């Protein structure tokens, strides 16, 4: 119980800021690449906010999440921590995963979700098939259950790539991510 409460500390923790680091890391990411459109729906406000960009994933090692509009940022997540470069401020924020359960969990599931690693996901979620190409994940662990009600993954027709993910938060807000130009 206590973990569930204390793990969220990271949200409010000030990140270390290092100015002037150029995020050239995107070029190295080759394993899974795709363009994405992330639509956040604030149910209470009935408001949608769309973010577009490009992602690149080396499963188990690194996820690079670049947004092009409405803001230009590059977020790099690794098992060691998170780095966020903001084009507007030209500053990089870093958050270490050491002792930060929330961050470790987020990287862990994003990595598995984007790679569509069902075997690994089975340990953390109850999996339900919804049609032929869609699965619904219900968190088993309290830390994930505290954040999400469910996560829906949709695969492409060939079942060889993830075409979309919808996160449904406890508050009813949703985060829908759809992928195009997927390259494995």
């Amino acid at each position, binding site marked *: *119980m206590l973990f569930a409460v204390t793990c969220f500390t990271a949200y*409010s923790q000030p990140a270390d800021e290092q100015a002037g680091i150029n995020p050239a890391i995107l070029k190295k990411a080759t394993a899974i690449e795709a363009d994405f459109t992330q639509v956040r729906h604030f149910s209470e*406000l009935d408001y949608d906010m769309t*973010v577009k960009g490009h992602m690149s994933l080396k499963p188990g090692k690194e996820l690079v999440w670049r947004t092009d509009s409405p803001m230009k940022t590059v977020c790099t997540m690794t098992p060691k921590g998170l780095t*966020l470069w903001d084009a507007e401020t030209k500053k990089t924020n870093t958050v270490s995963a050491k002792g930060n359960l929330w961050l470790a969990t987020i990287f862990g599931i*994003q990595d598995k979700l984007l790679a569509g690693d069902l075997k690994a996901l089975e340990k953390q979620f109850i999996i339900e098939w919804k049609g032929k190409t869609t699965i619904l994940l219900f968190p088993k662990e309290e830390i994930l259950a505290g954040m999400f009600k469910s996560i829906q993954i949709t695969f492409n027709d060939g079942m060889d790539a993830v075409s979309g993910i919808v996160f449904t*938060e406890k508050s009813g807000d949703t985060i829908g991510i759809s992928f195009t130009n997927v390259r494995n």
Partner: protein
Amino acid sequence: MSVISTLLAFAFKRRRAMHAALLLLLAAMLLLALFEGSYSNDLSQVFPADSISGSMFRSMQDASLTQTVQLEIDTGAADGVSAADKELAAFGERLQGLRNVRSVFYRVPHVSDNVMEEIIGTLPFCANADCLAKADVKLAVKTARKMLAMPGVPLSILRSDPFGLRMRQLSQLETFRRLGGYSGGMDGTGFIADAEKRRVLFLLEADFDGKQPNAALIAPLFMSIENLAKETLPPTAAVTINSPLTHNLENEQTVRHDIFHVSLVSIVALVLLFVVFYRNAWGALWIPFLPLAAAVITAGIFAFIFNNICLFVIGICGGIAGLAVDQGIHVFAAFSGRNPLRRLRSIAVPLSCSALSSAVVFLLVCGSGIGAYIQLGLFAALTLVFNLLLSFFVLPTLISHGRPPRRIFSFEPSGGKATAIVVVWVVFIAASLCCIPLLKKDFSLNALDGISKETALAEKEFQNRWVPEEKAGVPVIISSYDRDTLLRTCEHLPSHLHMREEEMFHPAMLMPSDDRMKENLASWRSETAQQRLATLKTELSKECAAAGLPPNLFGKFFGIIDNSLQSNKFEPPEYAKAILGYLLHDTSAIAFIPKLTEADVHKDLNYILPDIEKFSKAFGLAILSPELFKAATVRDVTPRLKRISVMLLIALVIFLIQYRDIRKIIIIIIPGLTAMLGLSLMSALCGVSLNLATAFGVIMLTGLVLDYGIFALHRTQSDVDAGTGDAMVLSALTTVVTCGALLASKHPVLFHTGFVLSFGILFTALTALFVVPSLLRMRCRIGKAALLLLLAASLTGCMSMRPQRYAKREISQEMSKAETEEFKAAFFKPRTSLYTLETSFLHYDFKTLMVVKTKSDSLQAIGTASNGVTLFNIVVENGKETKRMFSSMIPEVAQKRLFGTFGEDLWCIFMDEGASTCKYGGNPLRLTEKKGRNTRQKRWQAVYYDWRQDAAVFGRIRFRNFSTMTTFTLTPAN
């Protein structure tokens, strides 16, 4: 003597009436003891009423911490908790139904889905509105944009707290998790499980209907728990019980087991004594009955005087009364030969002297000021006096004059024999003196705990599994009469303990006191706070709109705050209720502080806890640190032991003055002194440490050994052979055999008491029977010289102070030199420091404030009284006093006697020269001890404790000048 003869004649003449009156008295006292007396095993009476250790123990009792049970179920396999979910739940439910179980906590309460919002809802109650001052609108929007840029990161948490105001509460919870040592996982299983999800913890609170828990209550409870586990849990599951009650149970069981065996040995010894020595004389059977009768009379008086009598005091006094058979043995021996009345009269003085001296020693134990020991001293003293009266006046009327007892002791040393015995004795004394510095001290309560090694190991393993020692903090128990006072006390804990609030966790962080809550609410409802909230709301909307975010993105935060301000009643969130349920009770609360360092223990003990004790009557406070408790026990008990020892010495001097002749006094004290020194030899050889049990054992021994000296003197003086030698042998035999049987006992208190009494009496008896006649044979000159040498050596040996001990380090010579130089540069640098100076001379202590200004070649010390008046001003240059001024407030005799060499003494303490030896230890190396030249005039010792690297000062410096017999204790005053 004529009075004694008259009384004896009267006793014989009116024997029937006397016996009848005595029987009536015994019956009345027995009834009084049985039906009027109130007995308990309350251990808090073992601690002095006004002591820190006593206050800590009582706070633990108030918090019912002494009746908690931690049950660990090991399922035997990783993730076994999930598999055994149903069985564990059933076990928990049935556990709650067991007799003597008040509550069971085992289910982790479900955390609300909206826990993050609930925390914000508590803000107006738990925090002052001042926290809004730092709210940064731009930073809030910037953070929101960053989170939006991350893949699939939920934003609801940020929306309900744009300014990170929740951070304070979350940090507090993190502190609780860290200091509470909750390293296991509580999530996923619904139980309090470890990280492997292999073991679960059930927390029980026992309730014995207000009775003190004893073995008869605890054993059935533990048995029923184990049976329930067998019935309910899978066969692979193993149950471990960890509880203070285990200590009660095992201590009681061990004591019972030991007492049974000791009693058996004693009975066998007495039967042998009866058959072999008394030749089946039935009258001898009265000897053990008289101490029993004396004890019954005392118990009756106690029932009348005391509201609460310690049961274990009665137990110990039973043993002491057993030792009082000596008086009966002497009377029986005297009364069994020719001219019985004459022989009896001849032992009246030594018998009275020995019994009364023992009684006085026991009465001195009352000077400890500790409830249990006051009862112990009084009980033993009264029993000895009653036994003396019964033995001398009643026993002769009960026995018929028959065959005299068998002669078993006769020793008349020849010249050669006497010399040989004295030489052996001198060697023995010398060896014993050499062993004094080797004595180990352990004044912790653990030294008196009779739990088995297996239990101690299991407890340690349990502790390591659930609360890793290196990470966990120290629980602090606060006790008071109501919840609100408890919470108010918790809020003041930082100032009480001189700590920052961020370093600790206390229940008032989750639920403030009424006053604090009202204050917080008022601050949020104030016009300023309301205006600030309104401004923040407007600015946030504008900033969000400008950043392309919904203008009302953070509306949730303002809505939650408004709702809280409208409701007047504070409802803690579920997580807070769960934690409070564990930490906050009606009359007690548990807080956590970081683990104490050595310096913390010193600070708490010397400044913080005494301050709290002095100023607060509304609450009790206990810091549950074993190191602190040990130090507090030593601090509380040592001055009391010192007081008793000084009183004992004074009493001995007064008692011995009546003998007027130094030769007689030497004869009386030789056996006892030999016994005390012999004990140090035996302790060093057997690895037995000096602890509370041995300390009080030595005090009891002092009372008993005088008898042998007095009777040894009587043997040399009396022209009547009253069988004193035989009686001494028999007395010693009964005591050594009975107390020696205690050496086989598992309980440390009994073992150590047995160790002191059996070896002590053995050495005393051997000295009284063989050494004293041998010394007398040698016309005393050598004996006197040997004794004076012995006294001088023992006095100087006992006066040395023990430096602080550190673990040995293997370091190179260069490193050692570098560390030593670094220390010297820090400590001996020129500076001005403020100290509290405590001056002790014999038993007289007083405190002053002293400023010490050190330069490279000079030192100045100015002492002031608490009202600021200058008491002294001393300047020392190159080791010689060049200025000396003392206020008339310090008497001239003290100026000359105590402060005669004060300047030189300070030079020895603070300057890097003048010592014949300097010892370094610790990591990094620091000064631990300095000694002067080992001559009588120049002998001094300075001992340095608790080095504080940051301030480059010692927490305490003790300096002893063996020439002036003065001890100075310096503690930094800032």
